[in-house]
């Protein structure tokens, strides 16, 4: 059903967003709250084999505070980070409740370990909604909702004109997700 909804989206509606994408990206990604230098450092620092320290660094960057998970939960998530293949999100369904209770945290782990998964963000969700792509609100990691979110950003990447694509060291999913967050915040 989600697949059909994405096919039916109005491409014309995206034009104003695409026309301003670079500026919107800078507005969000280079804001103090996003700490772009630390973001860039994480792109390099988070690498295999994943350890708790790397997840701590991601926790710091997101500003969510350190996860309060049992050791088994952390191990379960780290194993999943190795196993998951973009754009699959169904693996999330097998997580215990504790691991699933914060989608922003989980998607940030996925983003920094794979660079392809987009960080879940409420403003980004609102930005998608303004483009006619309605993704339900959630805080917990629902594999179907997050899957739709990931697919929607992937779709926008595909249909965007070449003028949207930066040459710099930011994965394209981050470029679009950050620009959507700025767009979603605008009245």
């Amino acid at each position, binding site marked *: 059903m989600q697949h059909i909804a994405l096919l039916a989206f109005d*491409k*014309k509606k*995206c*034009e104003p967003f*695409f026309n301003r994408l670079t500026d919107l990206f800078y507005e969000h990604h280079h804001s103090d709250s996003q700490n772009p230098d630390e973001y860039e450092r994480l*792109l*390099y620092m988070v*690498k*295999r084999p994943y350890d708790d320290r790397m997840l701590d660094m991601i926790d710091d960057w997101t500003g969510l505070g350190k996860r309060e998970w049992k050791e088994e939960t952390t191990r379960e998530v780290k194993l999943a980070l190795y196993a998951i*293949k*973009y754009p699959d999100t169904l693996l999330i369904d097998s997580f215990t409740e504790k691991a699933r209770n914060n989608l922003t945290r989980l998607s940030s782990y996925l983003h920094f*370990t*794979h*660079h*392809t998964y987009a960080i879940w963000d409420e403003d980004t969700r609102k930005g998608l909604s303004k483009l006619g792509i309605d993704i339900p609100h959630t805080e917990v990691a629902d594999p179907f909702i997050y899957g739709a979110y990931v697919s929607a950003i992937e779709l926008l990447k*595909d*249909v*965007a*004109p*070449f003028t949207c*694509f*930066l*040459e*710099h*060291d930011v994965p394209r999913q981050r470029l679009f997700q950050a620009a959507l967050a700025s767009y979603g915040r605008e009245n």
Partner: protein
Amino acid sequence: MADTEIVEKYTPNFEAWVQDFTEWQTRIGFDPSWLGDYRFDIKFDWDTAGEKIEFGDFEGMPKWERRMQIPQQNIRDAIISMISVQGDTEFASVEQQNHLLATAPTEYDMKSALRIMCEEQRHGWQMAYVLCTYFGEQGVREASKLLERNAQDGTRILGSFNAPIDHWLDFFCFTHFIDRDGKYQLKMLSTSSFKPLAASMGPMLKEESFHLGTGANGLRRIVKQGVIPCELLQKYLNKWISTGLDLFGTDDSTSAQWAYVYGVKGRYDERESDIKADRAHLNEASRELYFQELREEMRRISSVRKEGEPELFIPSDKFNRGIGMYSGKNYTITGEKFDGNNQEYQDYLISVLPTDEDEDKLMNDYMKKEWIQYREWKTK
């Protein structure tokens, strides 16, 4: 809004060319198995190509979609020439770079370079497809020549594409400076009066941004690591930038002017600019934009250097030029007229461009260490 068409069926002319392409890959030592599941799709973005001719003497008329709609043979020749030059650079860069895969500093760099080579080959395919499909026998002949000329033999059309790329520092300079020139050329053709050419550019430009990013980030990672001294890096910048500036062609170019009159090739900022084009100085205008962009990029790259290292900079556009009004003239890297005779100038060049000794030190000393910031290849 981009809506990319991927061509599924090829014309017989192009199918025959594909056979030659396979032989070319073998000849230059590019193993087709390296491509994995990558496909050389032919992609057109017809929406962004525009319906009406956007500038020049045919402005406002419908864009030409077939050869016979092009009103004059000399315009057809100009279009064929533009496509041939573009295609020539795509295959040349693969010839120049594919040997580097064996010495990549990290898996990330090896796979990035491989992606670049795949996409450059796709761009070459695209240009060959346009030649074979839209320009009959003349196009087929020109498409064949794309695979006959060779960078190693020095027979590629543009000088930079015959220059050897001996190591990964050259590779990052090439992708940062020379591919950036490529971006300018592609964007200038994206408003072309010949619609299949204009429609080819959108998908190519999307892919090109990754190539430029690889160059810019590669240089940034080298500077950040701080193993190769900035003084030595500066010599490589001096070497590559003058070559990049030369790629924009001669000053007061009449061929650029005619291409503009025909609507075949616009300015870099054709759609964004409110200013009327200065038709007599089109190459200079594009080159100046490129030069400004290089300076901005270099500030970004240089900002991550280690404490005590000198700032990296873009040398003057008068330095070491092979084309244009400063060609053959003796200028310093900061743009002053050189005060001395030709012999003294040759000695000066040795001090600001990489020497054999520098190359040896680079490859056999610095590059034996961890000379570039590590980056992990992220599997999907």
